[in-house]
């Protein structure tokens, strides 16, 4: 039976290694300077790149973080400091439920609350969709990290006459900074590769755009539309885009792991 269990591990790891290996192989073969600095060329013309999509993704993610991170951390603080009751439980449960909502459904909601009001696809709508996905994740991880901070630390602060809000922000949150950041980065990495909620919110764009009320290109969207196209040149670029995306995501996650390991945040 040990053999069977080992076999399952091999069966599971094989496709994963295959995916990574093939991604790196095709990606490195297709990536070049033009890919990183130019906008897409029309069909049939060789060259061109996804520079606008890389910047567009960063733009949409910035909007998402500006909206989602403070709300998520605030909700996490509430759950940790004031939420040890029935009401807190209901918020916790709602956050878990929101986490399981398919991303495409979040896209529909962002479409109807932003796109239908603005009357066109926009970077803002994409950012809102991603923010909605970030909030529940960040709030739950922030809560967990704040609860790890020893109660004695809070009591010491109260004993010095520091008001509760100041304690929560400058003592508890400060102590848990690296843990909270980990949660934020994980949420960020998760939404960075999201395609479905951007399909009818950010929509994609062949050109540069840095206005919040205009359709904006995003790396995952560009990978999707190039992957299902019939052109070899575009397939090549889809692989290059996938490599750039995965490198960005993995380096974000790895940076956080590294920072947390070195950080001053001791688990009590």
């Amino acid at each position, binding site marked *: 039976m040990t053999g069977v269990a080992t076999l399952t*591990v091999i069966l599971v790891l094989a496709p994963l290694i295959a995916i990574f290996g093939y991604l790196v192989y095709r990606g490195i073969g297709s990536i070049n300077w033009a890919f990183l600095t130019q906008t897409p060329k029309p069909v049939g013309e060789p060259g061109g790149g996804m520079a606008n999509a890389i910047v567009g993704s960063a733009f949409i993610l910035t909007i998402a973080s500006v909206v989602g991170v403070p709300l998520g951390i605030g909700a996490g603080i509430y759950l940790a400091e004031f939420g040890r009751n029935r009401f807190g439980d209901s918020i916790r449960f709602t956050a878990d439920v929101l986490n399981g909502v398919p991303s495409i459904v979040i896209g529909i909601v962002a479409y109807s609350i932003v796109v239908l009001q603005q009357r066109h696809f926009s970077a803002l709508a994409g950012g809102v969709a991603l923010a909605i996905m970030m909030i529940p994740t960040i709030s739950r991880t922030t809560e967990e990290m704040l609860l790890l901070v020893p109660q004695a630390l809070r009591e010491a602060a109260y004993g010095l006459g520091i008001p509760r809000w100041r304690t929560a922000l400058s003592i508890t949150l400060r102590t848990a900074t690296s843990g909270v950041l980990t949660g934020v980065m994980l949420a960020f990495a998760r939404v960075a590769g999201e395609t479905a909620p951007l399909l009818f919110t950010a929509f994609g764009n062949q050109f540069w755009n840095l206005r919040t009320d205009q359709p904006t290109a995003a790396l995952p969207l560009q990978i999707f539309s190039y992957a299902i196209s019939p052109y070899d040149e575009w397939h090549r670029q889809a692989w290059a885009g996938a490599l750039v995306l995965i490198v960005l995501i993995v380096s974000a996650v790895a940076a956080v792991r590294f920072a947390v390991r070195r950080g001053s945040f001791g688990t009590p």
Partner: protein
Amino acid sequence: MADPALKSPHMPGPQPVEKNTLRPVPTSQTAAPPLLSTSRYEIGDPIFKLAVLACALTILALLGLIVYELMFRSAMSWHAFGFKFFVGSNWDPVQEQFGALPFIYGTLVSSLLALLMAVPLAVGVAVFTTEMCPPILRGPLSFFTELLAAIPSVIYGLWAIFVLVPILRTYVQPFLARTLGWTSLFQGPPYGYGMLAAGIILAIMIVPIISSITREVLTAVPRHQREAALALGATRWEMIRVAVLRNGRAGIVGAVILGLGRALGETMAVTMVIGNRPEIAKSLFAPGYTMASVLANEFSEATGDVYLSALIEIGLALFLVTIVVNALARFLLWTVTRGQSMRANLA
């Protein structure tokens, strides 16, 4: 958490202490006269509590908003087709006739197919990592699982188009047709694209989720259960079966259902390989369509209010199904871990 500590008789209440030590505590607005800052201290806490409460309420509001928007915007389709929407199999945007059965069928079949393949593998991996993995391997293995969860689904789809589908088309499907063709599940031309490809890519995607949660469930099984089984003379495998798997049963089912919830809502990878044809076919080789992929493909091009409303109704159905599935999974996991914080929300 802080409440009981404040109210306990050993701890001084916050108010009197604050008044005694007003001056030494620096604030960002040191220019303000001390008397004013007295009042600021007193209103600081309520304001802070209100602010973070507002953030927490956003979560409730978001769920409410999702439900409201989906119901409000799908009302037109609901009025036009009623319950027939979910049993009709004619999807004709030109005639404005909408029946969602092919999509529901496609979603269910592809997800169940994925579970069929993923569950034995995922449980096997979890058992391996908790019970028999050499400690040196445990770290890399869990890091790898974490990495897998971070791969965007569009990249799984990309890989499926260029690697999985050709392999299925040239090797797997002809082989299956030869050996199992008589079951009528594996008949028809081997396109590569189709239900089978969707099921396999979904399985690859949900294995890490199911196995990482199962691993946590198995780790939560008390050590003395294992020791008792071993003391009674059980072999290692019998111990795993009797003590570990049986005790973690509810949690494993929870993990599987969570994986199901993930598979039901998965959009991009499935859209890229399932073939996108709204038909109900018996063969797993045939192209299909799922609820999520019809949204991905047709939503931004939907012309006409009824069409859009019908698509949103599919979104509503998908939403309700995943809510029920996830709630069930959370409940099962909660009975195992007794409200212990699960990292499941990160998966």
